[in-house]
């Protein structure tokens, strides 16, 4: 869209762009050099600090990543369990919101608005502190899963509802016309299609869930990836006199970035594929209606 604002660049603009690029590169390089000098001045480039995390030949490498892997298992478990529960409960909530009587629907809307307005870290902390207090003692992983599910199920309910709303009216009209009941229309016709067009949004929500598992650090005595990283940092400072705080958080961030970047790409790929499938499946005279629904899904 930037290109429609002005004509194709002439020789002068091209020269200006080249000069600007060169200047920007020099400035960026300068910043990188400054950062490296700053790191070196504070003794942060010491291979002793990077080795345990980034150099497989380092003698602490295997033990360090072994300790981190224990936390990573809990992180992955937390994310997967949350996804399963949030999808199930979210679908039920969406069905209740779409199909129930008015009084009941207000209740569901109330619950959704309430949980949506709360910070996730509060729901997790709430589960971890209040449940044991009222006598429900669970393994710490479950506090994380309950807290994350409480928040994410309403988000998923909203995603699915948006998916149902984006379907052409003809879908439910045709289903009623062939004599299906309300719940059959929802179960057999609308929900499967809503899931399909909302798949990219659901995968994006998985990225949020994976990131939010790190909030498990508020649960006392629970070791997920970030907490495991902190334990390793303390061990290195206490036992070996090596402070690899900076290097550890960089490594942790890299792991999250790799996983989530991959999930993000998967969401984009799914979106492209679904867009293509819808276009090619629809006969020409219906193509515009299909594109409209697909467009609404992309915007949500």
């Amino acid at each position, binding site marked *: 869209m930037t290109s429609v*604002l002005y004509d194709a660049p002439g020789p002068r603009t091209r020269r200006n762009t080249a000069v600007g690029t060169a200047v920007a590169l020099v400035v960026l390089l300068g910043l990188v050099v400054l950062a490296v000098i700053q790191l070196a001045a504070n003794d942060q480039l010491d291979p002793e600090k990077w080795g345990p995390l980034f150099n497989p030949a380092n003698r602490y490498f295997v033990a360090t990543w072994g300790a981190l892997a224990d936390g990573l298992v809990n992180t992955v478990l937390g994310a997967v369990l949350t996804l399963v529960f949030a999808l199930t409960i979210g679908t039920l909530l969406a069905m209740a919101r779409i199909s129930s009587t008015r009084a009941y629907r207000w209740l569901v809307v109330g619950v959704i608005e309430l949980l949506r307005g709360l910070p996730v870290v509060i729901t997790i902390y709430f589960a971890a502190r209040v449940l044991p207090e009222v006598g429900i003692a669970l393994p710490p992983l479950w506090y994380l899963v309950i807290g994350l599910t409480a928040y994410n199920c309403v988000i998923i309910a909203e995603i699915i509802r948006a998916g149902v709303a984006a379907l052409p009216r003809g879908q439910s009209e045709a289903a009623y016309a062939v004599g299906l009941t309300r719940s059959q229309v929802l179960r057999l016709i609308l929900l499967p299609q809503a899931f399909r067009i909302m798949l990219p949004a659901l995968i994006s929500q998985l990225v949020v869930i994976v990131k939010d598992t790190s909030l498990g650090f508020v649960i006392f005595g629970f070791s997920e990836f970030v907490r495991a990283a902190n334990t390793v940092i303390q061990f290195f400072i206490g036992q070996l006199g090596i402070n690899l705080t900076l290097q550890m958080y960089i490594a942790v961030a890299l792991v999250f970035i790799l996983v989530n970047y991959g999930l993000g790409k998967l969401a984009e790929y799914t979106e492209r594929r679904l867009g293509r499938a819808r276009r090619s499946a629809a006969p020409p005279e219906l193509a515009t209606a299909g594109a409209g629904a697909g467009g609404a899904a992309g915007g949500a």
Partner: protein
Amino acid sequence: MDALIAEFPLFAAGFVGTLRLCLFAAVGSLVLGTILAAFRVSPLPPLRFVGLAWVTVFRNSPLVVVLFLCAFALPLVGVRFPTFAGNAFFWPGVAGLTAYTAAFVCEAVRAGINSVPPGQAEAARAVGLTFQQTLGTIVLPQALRSVVPPLGSVIIAMIKNSAIVGAFGVAGDLFSVDSALQATSRYSALSILTGVAICYLVITIPAGIALGMLERKIEVKR
């Protein structure tokens, strides 16, 4: 609930603390995010790279890790934050929240600019408007309208994320109320945390309703 009523001044102070934290981070991330969005649509490849790198890194890392980096790793490389009213984690919290939210602001702004159909700019150029006129009178006003709703959602999400700053260290916000009251052991966790939750809802639900109204009002009919 009884904690909220009995200890109202404490909750009010935490409420103000959260608002203060969010105000700084909101201003910071809107400014930084807009600059990053300009980088991302800039004709200069190095700037586009910086924008893309920032968005990729901060959208995909958990805020907790960003905050840990700001609070514990930056001091090791000589970046030290002053305390704010005795709260050591206030400024690192603002810095982390700003850096993180800026990535989302950047994407919202960029999506808004891209949402103006190219035909609008083409038509403007066809009737003979200059570059400045096209941008100033045709594209930007429409972009602004479609940017406001997603930006509002980003800021509401940021307010909720500010709780993580409090959970993580003393920042003088609503979360600190819990540690203060927990120490007295006069109230149940249920009572304290219900109070904290209500305080957050008092901010987020009206903000969401106001945003919905604003959205309907400035919606571009196409």
